[in-house]
């Protein structure tokens, strides 16, 4: 009983930090409609800055509690300023761009911040020295409970109260609330939107920074904090209802308690548990606990999609030449080039599978890596436990991915907009968590090794041809499906669900089939990748992998059928070049993403297509 109480209090203490970061995220989303991936980075910066500032203050005035608190607040203010700066330099230019491009741009910021942090603070975890008063305990029902955690419990409600005052009593707060409800109206009232948005970013980022700062005594500052917290923060914001601060408060309590007791009940599946809670809440309340439907007003892909026409002859010829060159590569290219080529072919299918969902399907998946990873693990588990040969492993791969595609897809296609995207992210995190935590099955972080091709395919050239047949074959099949009646019906359901249903089309079922097809295709890609690498790891399912797929599709252009192919080639080329030549490749990649989003909001293939059509007219 006492143990349960302590666990409950621990949950409350964790809820405070979670609430700080989630409230910042939800306020930013509510006003600007930007799904800000970089919010986790602000949290991380909060921890690092607090580490530096608090230590500097202590050096100067002794290890006093009030200097500690001042240090945390200063760190939060500094992070707020950084957030405002990012808003002014970058986000301000892309409020009109499609939601996804904003998301990508913020992910570019994530990469930049990672490298900047690495450069400034180094790769080691940074613990804050803990003076005696920080290590103090209080007696709670006969158990020792950290005093600091007890204080943290009150931070959440206090901040909630302060935010309430801010939103009720100040002009800024009233504008924030008005903009959350109806952005256009506030614009029409002649309010200075720029200042409002910058102010909101300052506030939101400062809250994230404070969240990072207050966890410093119990958790070292480290470079994994950003992505670890962002998934959790998304869960809290979505469960609470996007844009709702009280919702975020309730949800942070719920999630933190689920975690606190999950550790006791199912230590191996805490992460899974959190995301299951989210999925369950969304099934009952599709807009979160306290959210409202208008929280996502815009179509996920932005403006009206252009008509899809058959590819012009030149493009087909170019494709055939590229294919011939790839197939002939063993004649003129070395083993490294062949390895790169195999990866490229895998990524083309991975991108094409996501494109089917995002383009014609209008279903934006933030967690497509799940199916890639399930494919890879399908093959690897087959090897590990059943000792199946490669041929069978390559059947298991799409099978496992497709199976999960059916189950997850069934839930996903019932939602829309940002909530849908967040649910896909949640499902992907469930799969990732299983791969990461269920060590007996998956080997955890160490992955599964020894996933080698059958003897006949060990030769690089033969494996390349196998990959070409499987991956490009599947890509071409997906392409055909887009041009076939199914693809038209899918686009019909995306363009106007109302009209689609009024001519006998079952929009949800069309989307589900697209989801499963995409999962199967990604599973094939994952399976081939597993055999190409000889091993599988949880990173195949991680958020960055899902973002890779998004990047490839968006780089290429969502609304062009050739987009994913162009995007995969461009992305992989860029990635490898940076990896090889640039020491700070993450920052460089982040900068490249940001630059590309600013330069080509319709993707590279979309850009070329528009230029082409302006010059030669639409192909028919």
């Amino acid at each position, binding site marked *: 009983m006492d143990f349960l109480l302590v666990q409950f209090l621990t949950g409350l203490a964790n809820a405070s930090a979670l609430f700080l970061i989630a409230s910042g995220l939800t306020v930013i989303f509510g006003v600007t409609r930007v799904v800000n991936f970089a919010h986790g980075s602000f949290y991380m910066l909060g921890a690092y800055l607090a580490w530096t500032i608090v230590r500097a203050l202590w050096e100067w005035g002794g290890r006093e509690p009030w200097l500690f608190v001042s240090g945390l607040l200063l760190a939060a203010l500094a992070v707020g300023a950084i957030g405002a700066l990012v808003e002014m330099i970058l986000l301000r230019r892309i409020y009109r761009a499609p939601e996804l491009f904003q998301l990508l741009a913020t992910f570019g910021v994530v990469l930049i911040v990672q490298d900047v942090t690495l450069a400034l603070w180094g790769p080691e975890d940074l613990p804050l020295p803990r003076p005696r008063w920080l290590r103090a305990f209080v007696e709670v029902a006969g158990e020792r409970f950290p005093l600091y955690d007890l204080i943290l419990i009150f931070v959440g409600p206090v901040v909630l109260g302060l935010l309430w005052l801010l939103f009720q009593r100040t002009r800024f707060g009233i504008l924030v609330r008005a903009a959350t409800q109806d952005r256009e109206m506030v614009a029409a009232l002649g309010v200075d939107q720029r200042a409002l948005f910058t102010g909101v970013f300052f506030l939101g980022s400062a809250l994230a920074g404070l969240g990072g700062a207050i966890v410093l005594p119990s958790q070292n500052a480290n470079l994994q904090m950003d992505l670890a917290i962002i998934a959790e923060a998304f869960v809290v914001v979505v469960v609470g209802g996007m844009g709702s601060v009280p919702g975020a408060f309730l949800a942070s309590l719920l999630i933190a308690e689920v975690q606190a007791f999950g550790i006791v009940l199912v230590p191996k599946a805490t992460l899974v548990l959190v995301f299951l809670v989210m999925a369950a809440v969304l099934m009952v309340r599709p807009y979160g606990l306290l959210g409202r439907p208008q929280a996502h007003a815009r179509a996920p892909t932005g403006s009206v999609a252009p008509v899809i026409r058959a590819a012009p002859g030149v493009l087909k010829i170019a494709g055939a030449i590229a294919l011939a060159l790839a197939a002939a590569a063993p004649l003129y290219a070395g083993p490294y080039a062949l390895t790169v080529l195999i990866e490229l072919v895998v990524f083309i299918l991975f991108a094409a599978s996501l494109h089917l969902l995002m383009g014609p399907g209008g279903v934006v998946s933030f967690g497509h890596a799940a199916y890639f990873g399930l494919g890879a693990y399908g093959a690897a588990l087959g090897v590990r436990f059943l000792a199946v040969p490669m041929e069978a492993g390559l059947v298991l791969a799409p099978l496992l991915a497709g199976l999960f595609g059916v189950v997850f897809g069934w839930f996903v296609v019932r939602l829309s907009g940002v909530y849908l995207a967040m649910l896909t992210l949640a499902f992907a995190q469930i799969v990732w968590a299983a791969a990461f935590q269920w060590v007996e099955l998956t080997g955890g972080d160490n992955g599964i090794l020894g996933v080698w091709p059958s003897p006949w395919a060990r030769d690089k050239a033969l494996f390349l041809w196998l990959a070409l047949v499987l991956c490009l074959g599947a890509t071409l099949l997906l392409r055909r499906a887009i041009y076939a009646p199914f*693809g038209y019906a899918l686009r019909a359901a995306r363009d106007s669900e109302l009209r689609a249903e009024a001519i006998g089309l079952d929009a949800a079922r069309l989307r589900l089939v697209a989801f499963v097809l995409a999962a199967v295709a990604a599973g094939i890609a994952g399976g081939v990748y597993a055999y190409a690498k000889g091993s599988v790891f949880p990173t195949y399912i991680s958020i960055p992998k899902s973002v890779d797929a998004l990047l490839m599709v968006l780089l290429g252009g969502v609304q062009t059928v050739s987009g994913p192919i162009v995007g995969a080639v461009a992305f992989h080329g860029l990635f490898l070049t940076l990896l090889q030549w640039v020491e700070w490749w993450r920052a460089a990649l982040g900068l490249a993403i940001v630059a590309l989003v600013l330069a080509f909001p319709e993707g590279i293939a979309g850009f070329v297509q528009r230029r082409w059509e302006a010059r030669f007219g639409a192909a028919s």
Partner: protein
Amino acid sequence: MSSIAPVLEARGLVKRFGGVVAVDQVSLSLRAGEMLALIGPNGAGKSTCFNLLNGQLRADAGEILLEGRSLAGLPPRAIWRLGVGRTFQITATFASMTVRENVQVALLSHHRRIWRFWRAARHAFVAEAEALLDQVGMREQADRPCGVLAYGDLKRVELAIALANAPKLLLMDEPTAGMAPAERIALMELTRRLVRERGIACLFTEHDMDVVFGHADRILVMNRGRLIAEGDAAAVRADPAVREVYLGSGTTSGGH
């Protein structure tokens, strides 16, 4: 027997939105080959009636029979399969497709060819689609994307789509809104001809009283969710309740 029985029969339909009773005890019946106009001022509940009839909204009370078969609980797509075509007050077409492709998708669905993954849809039912577009005068624009069409043209495309499944019942919510007067007459003439030739039952709403009085066989007048009058053009024009509702609003033909 079935040729005498009405195509559509609705009894005692009620639909509430919170406190608003948008449709209040509406009953109507419609025979094959008949043009029935449903008129009334803004917010009278006309579109809500349409939404009840095609399954988009579920009635709080009442029943709807299509050729004697109850439509209770069926979604729009199932009702469409039973032969109910519809156009919307605010047009709903597939903006990323050409005019022809819009009709082709409807035809593919009608012929149950949606779940095909191999042959290009571009070549499916081209002749049929163009014939339908010819009927509504959109053949020349078949290759234009729906996203760039003028509003009146979108209404025509919607009619072509609605006709794609050879409907028994056609529901048209303000089919001529956004068109020039001459176009309106032409479109309604066309509709009336199709309705007569094919024995379609057609229910439509319209704010243009020339269109209503010129093309409806029978007129229902609605106000605040209730039916307040019914009859042919002359009877409705003479009805005191109708005059009351429309007086001063200036929408009755020659009623300035």
